């Protein structure tokens, strides 16, 4: 049997998914620890051996596509002018491209900020600022500062187009590579991140993969085409929209609770559902991704205690949970031993509570909010962000969810809540689980075989 192999070089595991194009089925999956420190191919070979051992019917791998979030993923700095406008637009471009936004700067870069930029491990800088025809002074100032620094970090320029010629002149002879793309906010509150996302992906493929020591893998498996989170976002979009005669699922949400971060992806316009609602703020992307760096099962477990009080924490235990949990001790244990796996019911219940918090808080931050204004014409409402109340499907992925019998209980945290009435959360969605961990692979497969990827997702997400 010939198979198409999808590879995901994750931060912990290298995961393989083998698809038989003829019978349109997933033949099998396997994983092994990612070995980026030594040679990334070791982990890959091990996973491949396991796959071939478990599935002797595979005689040939006809094609391979790969994505990666190994070696810390794709780390970016976003620079813009006004915080809620071009800075936010720049951040969304980075997130949409599958990056983690580690640094965010607004207005003029200062010496202190430049120092921070030089000291932080950043893979790509996105420089924005000003609408087309608007403010040029700020982006030109910041371009000069970046030229002064002359770090060997690629820069995507996606700001006021009027400044582009000047920036070309400023960047002459620089050490870094740069690309000028379309403005991420060409008009006030209008978001246009596609070109910026494309630019980020190109640099990811051409440079970042190499810098992270994953390039070696390309000799054997061909090009690594995108960061893993982008593959998940592409898969979600495909599943939502459908392809040709195969219908999609409509508006949906993917929540990925990981060891270090919780990612939320939603596909849908999120427009107001009522007439007396007025949209505020920057335009929302149709496929939106947010990443919470302080919500995770292990690496960021500590940070959870600064987000919720221990009283609030207790609310996330099941009603019939009779354990005496020592919250601080249990959190500390998970932070200090990131490979920790629960071995009994007590520990499982505690992990479930952390997962519920990750789920609940990340959704609060992702969904839109309503604010009431009293006008002489009666009550009106401001909506900031997306109205996700009509979302039909919530799909859970990530280690803590996919092999957890209480997964749907955890996912239920996304629902509308009486104590969070102003948040536009899903009203009554159905829950699906990415049990075979295929979402990223299907994003990859969808680049060449969208219809098949869609069919497989509809079959394997349960």
């Amino acid at each position, binding site marked *: 049997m010939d198979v198409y192999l999808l590879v995901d070089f994750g931060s912990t595991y290298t995961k393989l998914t083998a698809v038989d194009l003829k019978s349109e089925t997933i033949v099998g999956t396997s994983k092994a620890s990612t070995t980026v420190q030594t040679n990334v191919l070791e982990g890959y070979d091990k996973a491949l051996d396991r796959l071939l051992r478990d599935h002797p019917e595979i005689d040939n791998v006809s094609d391979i596509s790969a994505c990666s979030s190994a070696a810390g993923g794709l780390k970016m700095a976003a620079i813009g002018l006004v915080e809620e406008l071009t800075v936010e637009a720049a951040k969304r471009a980075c997130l949409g491209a599958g990056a983690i936004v580690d640094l965010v700067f607004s207005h003029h870069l200062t010496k202190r900020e430049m120092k921070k930029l030089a000291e932080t491990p950043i893979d790509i800088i996105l420089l924005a600022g000003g609408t087309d025809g608007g*403010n040029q*002074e700020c982006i030109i100032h910041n371009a000069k500062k970046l030229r002064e620094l002359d770090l060997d970090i690629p820069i995507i320029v996606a700001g006021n187009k009027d400044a582009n010629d000047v920036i070309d002149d400023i960047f002459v002879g620089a050490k870094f590579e740069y690309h000028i793309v379309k403005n991420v906010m060409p008009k006030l509150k209008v978001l246009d991140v596609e070109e910026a996302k494309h630019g980020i992906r190109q640099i990811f493929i051409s440079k970042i993969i190499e810098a992270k020591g994953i390039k070696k893998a390309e000799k054997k498996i061909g090009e690594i085409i995108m960061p893993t989170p982008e593959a998940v976002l592409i898969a979600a979009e495909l599943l939502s929209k459908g392809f040709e005669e195969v219908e999609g699922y409509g508006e949906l949400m993917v929540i990925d609770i990981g060891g270090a971060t919780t990612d939320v992806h939603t596909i849908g316009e999120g427009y107001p559902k009522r007439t007396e609602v007025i949209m505020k703020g920057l335009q929302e992307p149709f496929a939106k991704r947010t990443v919470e760096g302080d919500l995770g099962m292990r690496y960021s477990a500590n940070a959870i205690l600064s987000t919720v009080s221990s009283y609030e924490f207790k609310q996330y235990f099941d009603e019939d949970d009779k354990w005496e949990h020592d919250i601080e001790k249990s959190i500390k244990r998970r932070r200090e031993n990131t490979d920790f796996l629960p071995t009994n019911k007590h520990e499982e219940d505690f992990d479930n509570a952390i997962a519920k918090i990750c789920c609940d808080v990340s959704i609060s931050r992702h969904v839109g909010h309503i604010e009431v204004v009293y006008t002489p014409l009666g009550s009106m409402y401001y909506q900031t962000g997306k109205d996700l109340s009509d979302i039909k499907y919530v799909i859970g992925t990530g280690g803590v969810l996919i092999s957890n019998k209480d997964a749907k209980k955890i996912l239920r945290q996304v629902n509308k809540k009486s104590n969070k009435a102003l948040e536009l959360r899903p009203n009554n969605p159905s829950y699906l689980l990415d049990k075979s961990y295929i979402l990223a692979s299907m994003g990859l497969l969808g680049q060449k075989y969208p219809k098949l990827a869609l069919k497989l997702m509809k079959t394997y997400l349960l």
Partner: protein
Amino acid sequence: MKSVVIGVIGADVHAVGNKIIDHVLSSAGYNVVNIGVLSSQEDFISAAIETDAKAILVSSLYGHGEMDVKFFRENCDEAGLSDVKLYVGGNIVVGKQDFNEVEKRFKDMGFDRVYGPGQKIEDAITHLKEDIGI
């Protein structure tokens, strides 16, 4: 092309005049950045920064404008917009008051041009040409 920011401030939802101002100023050759109704001072100011606007035209029809525009000039100064011209117009105070007094009060607050009810939009164009050119 010079940019100007227009919008209706506060809890005011009167959209018709706003659309007319947008249309007329655009026809006169300005890049009009219309932030629409129910806009806060911060919305006007952020829009003016990103679009490098030379003037902000604040509309208010529901009578509470005087409260809504308090410290507008100071907030602009704080945001680095000291050179931006500020215009205000509409039914900007409660009830019928002597316009000369009203104009003085708003000018003391830092507005460059103050328009009462019934003022022609063409006057604003004349003033814009004087204040910021075209």
